[in-house]
């Protein structure tokens, strides 16, 4: 592994027994784990290429315990890595050998459901799907739906600002959270936002959501819930070229239609999915689109006609509209199983996550084919076409000496290309350790320094989740210095009054 993590604090590791004892004083019973065997399940998240055993694992049950654990670590200068359900694809909760792993899985209760105000108050360990399950009896749901929604936790969703296939219309986590309770590394508990829409002061939720566990530990979340649309219908469209599919996507959006979801798969992904789930996908097309519309029946029917007309005008060779819920789910079955389906083609695969301006898709796909030849690895593409979020799946075999390395190089080439065409390094999986060293492809040193200063406002000692997101660690004192020498009057040639 080429990843360089912060240098281990030998002093902390030497004090391990003392630290574990202190943690046990805060979280009694089985809430503190220190044996290597029992810590094994925590050694990595869903980015399984990287594994490290933590110093110790703590699984608190109360806000007070979270606060005391963090305060203890703060006072003793011990690093902390927060963890939700451990489904991060970017290594956001990869442990550090000298850090306490703070697992939030025991915070798994739905605290309040307030249908009249259309909010649910939940603990961070509740799964994403668990929120919807708690409210679906009354016909409500929680909109963000990352593909790991059965397992991933709301706390983790906040850390990563998770999206899903429906965020084109309904937004990401950022747009669906109204309030949080967060514990800072100092142990201080802050409540931000609530059931009301606007709050006092700076919009701290804006930086907390998507902060990848670097700013604090969320202990309670108020999410917006929505009434389920009356109906959802999907249309399955196949095209002879990805250019035609791309043009069709642009035209749909250009016509003023915002579908609930708009997904694209390329030929390798279509074939893999079809072989796995037999969804009835056409095998003679280069690109397959699934366009889903939801809302009132009358609206869906009307918009479906428009979408099918657009698809025809761009030369669709397959065009099927779902006429039942079973058929709609069948259209999705292949897409939803795309990752495991591709997994069957190869011993391992590496899921990349970048966003591009939609219009650049044909260019990016063509370049990706070149990269595929250069790195001698196959790639299958699934793509949130509506919002430009790409998920190339690079096939490799970890048992072949340099394939993982080549897969990572291939992934880095793709992400740099995303930035080059006006996109970004990550659309929804986060930077974590995976894309950390690519950050300079998108941001210069001043940009990154300003971001790190934001962290200083929450965690001046850099104890929370160090080694993630930022390629270089800088001390806050160093970041805080100003380098201004000039005292001259600005642009003296200009008139002033």
């Amino acid at each position: 592994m080429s990843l360089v993590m912060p240098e281990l604090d030998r002093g902390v590791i030497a004090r391990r027994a003392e630290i574990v004892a202190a943690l046990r004083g805060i979280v009694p019973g089985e809430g503190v784990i220190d044996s290597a065997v029992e810590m094994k399940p925590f050694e990595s998240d869903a980015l399984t290429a990287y594994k490290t055993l933590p110093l110790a694992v703590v699984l608190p049950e109360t806000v007070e315990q979270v606060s005391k654990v963090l305060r203890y670590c703060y006072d003793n200068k011990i690093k902390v890595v927060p963890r939700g359900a451990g489904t991060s694809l970017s290594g956001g909760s990869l442990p550090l050998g000298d850090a306490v792993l703070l697992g939030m899985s025991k915070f798994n209760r739905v605290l309040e459901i307030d249908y009249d105000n259309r909010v649910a108050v939940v603990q961070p360990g509740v799964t994403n799907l668990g929120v919807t399950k708690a409210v679906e009896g009354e016909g409500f749901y929680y909109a963000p739906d990352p593909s790991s929604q059965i397992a991933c936790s709301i706390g983790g969703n906040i850390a990563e600002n998770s999206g899903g296939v429906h965020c084109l219309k309904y937004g990401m986590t950022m747009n669906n959270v109204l309030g949080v309770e967060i514990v800072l590394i100092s142990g201080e508990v802050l409540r931000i936002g609530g059931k009301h829409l606007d709050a006092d002061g700076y919009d701290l939720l804006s930086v907390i959501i998507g902060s990848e566990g670097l700013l604090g530990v969320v202990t309670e979340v108020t999410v917006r819930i929505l009434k389920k649309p009356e109906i959802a219908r999907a249309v399955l469209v196949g095209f002879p070229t990805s250019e035609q599919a791309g043009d069709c996507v642009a035209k749909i959006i250009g016509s003023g239609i915002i579908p609930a979801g708009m997904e694209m798969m390329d030929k390798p992904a279509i074939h893999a999915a079809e072989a796995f789930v037999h969804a009835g996908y056409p095998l003679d097309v280069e690109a397959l689109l699934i366009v889903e519309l939801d809302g009132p029946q009358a609206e869906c029917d009307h918009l479906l006609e428009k979408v099918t007309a657009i698809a025809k005008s761009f030369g669709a060779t397959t065009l099927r509209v779902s006429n039942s819920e079973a058929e709609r789910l069948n259209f999705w079955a292949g897409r939803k199983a795309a990752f495991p389906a591709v997994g069957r083609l190869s011993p391992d695969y590496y899921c990349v996550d970048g966003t591009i301006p939609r219009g650049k898709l044909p260019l990016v796909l063509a370049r990706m084919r070149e990269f595929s030849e250069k790195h001698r690895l196959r790639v299958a593409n699934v793509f949130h076409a509506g919002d430009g979020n790409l998920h190339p799946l690079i096939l490799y075999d970890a048992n072949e000496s340099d394939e993982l390395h080549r897969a990572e190089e291939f992934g880095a080439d793709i992400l740099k290309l995303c930035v080059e065409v006006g996109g970004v390094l990550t659309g929804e999986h986060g930077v974590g350790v995976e894309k950390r060293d690519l950050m300079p492809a998108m941001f210069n040193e001043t940009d990154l320094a300003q971001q790190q200063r934001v962290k200083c406002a929450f965690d001046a000692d850099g104890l929370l989740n160090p080694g993630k997101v930022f390629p270089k660690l800088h001390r806050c004192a160093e970041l805080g210095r100003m380098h201004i020498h000039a005292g001259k009057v600005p642009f003296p040639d200009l008139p002033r009054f």
Partner: protein
Amino acid sequence: MSNIFKPRDENEIVEAVAWAVSGEKSLEVTGRGSKRALGRAAQYDSTLDVSQLSGVVLYEPEELIFSAKAGTPVAEIEKLLAANRQEFAFEPVDLGPVLGGKAGEGTLGGLVSVNFAGPRRVKAGNTRDHALGVKAVSGRAEIFKAGGRVVKNVTGYDLPKLLTGAYGTLAVMTEITLKVLPVAEDVETLLVSGLSDQRAIEALALASASAWDVSAAAHFPAPVAAKLPIRGSAAATAFRLEGIAPSIAYRRDKLEAMLKSFGALGTLKADESRALWRAARDVLPFAQNISHALWRISVTPTLGAKIGGAIAAATGASLFYDWAGGLIWAEMPGEEPHEQAVRGAVGGNGHALLVRATPAVRAHAAVFGPLGAGHLKVMRGLKESFDPKAVLNPGRMYAGM
């Protein structure tokens, strides 16, 4: 005597900020000054007027994105978007009339800096939900960028959203990228007349919790309704439906069935609807008595009538409710803002912002709500991280920041 700097580009902003930092001078950061009366009254050594930084940088309708320099007039932008049948979905509020100025005077930078969304807030979110990317000059006299030009982006902290609503106290934005969305083809408004505030809030909650995609839900008590483009003199509870015509007709039927037990129903067609919601958005019923204190109060929606009622009883305020009861606009009967009564009624259930008050009042009243010690510490830390010498709009939101 104070200077007015009118930089022509971001490098000149850097120069101006560097000058302020080295001379420990404070700068009032402003666009065209249309919202100068908003926020705490503070004294500045000089003015940094970014109105010269104007112009569209990038507009790709099919990508649903728009970038412009911070000093670009909002009116110009809205015209351009409308020509492509697009808009900012959060319905930017034009504070001109209610602050005693003219309509259509604001700039993009000002719009983003105050983070005010209109009636569609309940469906489309706030300004910050649409802010994707920013280029800015920090109080360290450094140019930085954050975010990007795509909607789905989690690369680094979402600083564009943090700067949204920071009233220019963290950085001088020079270029802003926002998401744009298609304008609805059609619009209609369903009205229920004669409801009490409490009963109206119940109707608003019921409709908002339905699948009928209400894109604005407001209640106008009789005295306010009388100043709006609605026929009759009774209180009016209004539900906006936007979209394609067949969908609106379908949803109107559903909503009528749901609401008919509340009171007499009526509808407003497209033009009347647009006039009504524009008036609600820009708070036009309270744009006459410019010296009277005006509050914008965001609360738990179902508590709206209770909180609004308590404020009215204690102060004699006139008010109306937007955001399904979650937003109360309260105009005081005079210059006195009755801050304690307002904040007392809101308690821990929301946020109250004193939008309008005379300079004498603004010199003493807390315009923004009080913050807890922990929250204040983080805010100070953020101010320090962007603007350690507090040269940018110091005191505009909170004293000493």
